[in-house]
């Protein structure tokens, strides 16, 4: 069978688009296949935090440092403004001593990657963000680290890839993989069969479905996050802000004592976009592929927002939406070759960090596929750390 491309990339989220761009940049002929449309997945229903302070200490933080350094020149490189602001900083206000102690511990770990993250008093925090409620205890603060417009970035990756010769098929669903023994040779889709030397699974929260087609058990599950958007308002805040519970729920869920909060994984996240609207989240829920909004979650989110920024009570919200994060059991993505299936690669499972990690994921995976070795080790993210062949 003659091949249709060097490499087929399944999925048109921010990860698939970054991988497609980077492979095209290395001179490969890429066919990208997306079931609905570019940005219809999590990239279209997300915040755009590109910060250090929300990253798990260790390998994830080190990878984030690599990725964030790439953001600086992305608009220039891709030829489109992706609304990246590096110096907005990040903050996580704490409500009590317990949260202060837990965050201080996490900060110690995070600082080992050489990033500037520290605990500050509420007075200092309010000098940076004057709208913050005065009765808070203090805050974790990271002066660098920023935000980006995730939809613009995804589309910019895609446009840049197309300019380099990539073919992008939308409204095309991959229904099966074409196998020869244990080797993956191509894909069956709703618009025909396509063959290539290698196939990349970048289907985010849906990556396990593609895994099944190869007889693999990929441990990725959808974890829903609900968000609301406000009407545009004047300059309100600079930092991307999460309440302390955000890092606690992400890294130390056992320390959360409120069962209701734990059930929907509620923690406040809030940022102002370039067009003036605030994006306020969020939840972390295991409810399958459901993408509906629930009044319970919206109410909890808005209550937390008013707790931290009392002035918000007079602002209108205009829309609610939800996205599915690709959750993995150890909180790290799967990036790289699957040893047991020749020609099959995974780039998925970035849970709540896929926007920030998208540039480096595309770059390193493309290097691994094309050169057989990446310029920064992906060892901690090796998909083969999980028993993929277990039934």
């Amino acid at each position, binding site marked *: 069978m003659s091949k249709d491309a060097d490499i087929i990339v399944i999925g048109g989220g921010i990860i698939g688009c970054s991988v497609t761009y980077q492979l095209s940049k290395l001179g490969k002929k890429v066919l990208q296949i997306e079931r609905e*449309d*570019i*940005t*219809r997945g999590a990239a*279209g229903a997300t915040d755009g935090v590109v910060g250090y302070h929300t990253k798990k200490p260790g390998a994830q933080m080190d990878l984030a440092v690599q990725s964030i350094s790439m953001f600086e020149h992305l608009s220039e490189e891709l030829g489109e403004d992706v609304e990246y602001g590096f110096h907005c900083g990040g903050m996580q206000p704490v409500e009590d001593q317990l949260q202060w102690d837990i965050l201080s511990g996490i900060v110690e770990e995070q600082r080992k990657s050489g990033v500037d993250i520290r605990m500050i008093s509420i007075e200092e925090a309010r000098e940076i963000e004057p709208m913050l409620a005065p009765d808070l205890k203090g805050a974790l603060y990271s002066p660098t680290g920023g935000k980006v417009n995730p*939809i613009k970035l995804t*589309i910019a990756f895609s*446009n840049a890839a197309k300019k380099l010769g990539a073919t*992008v098929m*939308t*409204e095309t669903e991959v229904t099966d993989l074409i196998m020869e023994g244990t080797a993956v040779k191509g894909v069956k889709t709703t618009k025909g069969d396509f063959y290539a030397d290698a196939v990349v699974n970048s289907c985010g929260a849906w990556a396990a479905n593609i895994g099944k087609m190869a007889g693999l058990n990929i441990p990725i599950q959808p974890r829903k996050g609900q968000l609301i958007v*406000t*009407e*545009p308002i004047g300059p309100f805040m600079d930092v991307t802000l999460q309440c302390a519970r955000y890092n606690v729920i992400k890294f130390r869920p056992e320390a959360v004592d409120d069962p209701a909060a734990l059930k929907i994984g509620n923690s406040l996240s809030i940022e102002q976009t370039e*067009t003036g609207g605030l994006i306020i989240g969020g939840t972390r829920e295991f409810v399958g592929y459901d993408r509906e*909004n629930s*009044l319970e979650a*919206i*109410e909890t*989110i*808005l*209550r*937390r*927002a*008013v*707790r931290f920024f009392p002035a*918000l*009570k*007079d*602002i*209108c*919200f*205009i*829309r*609610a*939406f939800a996205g599915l994060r690709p959750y993995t059991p150890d909180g790290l993505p799967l990036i790289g070759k699957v040893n047991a299936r020749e020609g099959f690669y995974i780039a998925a499972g970035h849970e709540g960090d896929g926007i920030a990690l998208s540039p480096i994921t595309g770059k390193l995976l493309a290097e691994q596929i094309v050169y057989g070795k990446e310029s920064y080790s992906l060892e901690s993210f090796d998909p083969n750390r999980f028993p993929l062949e277990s039934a």
Partner: protein
Amino acid sequence: MDDIIICRCQEVTRQEILDAIAAGATTVDGVKRRTRAGMGLCQGKTCERLVAKIIAEQTGRPMAEILPPKSRIPVRPVKIGIIGGKDDE
């Protein structure tokens, strides 16, 4: 004619919508993600039909495939304090 504004909240012109369709958008949602048309204060209540008509003209698709399946909450802008006010209020 192509510089007329279709989405008044976000000031998106007919030309920008045509460009988005040329870049691959085939639904109201696809145009929205590429141009911000329908993302403003009225959430597309005014422009949605106009955007859908332009897509139908350009692609020959039926309206049912172009329009979003349903609207999300809230149906109209709602003050945050009404839902998220403090417990003791």
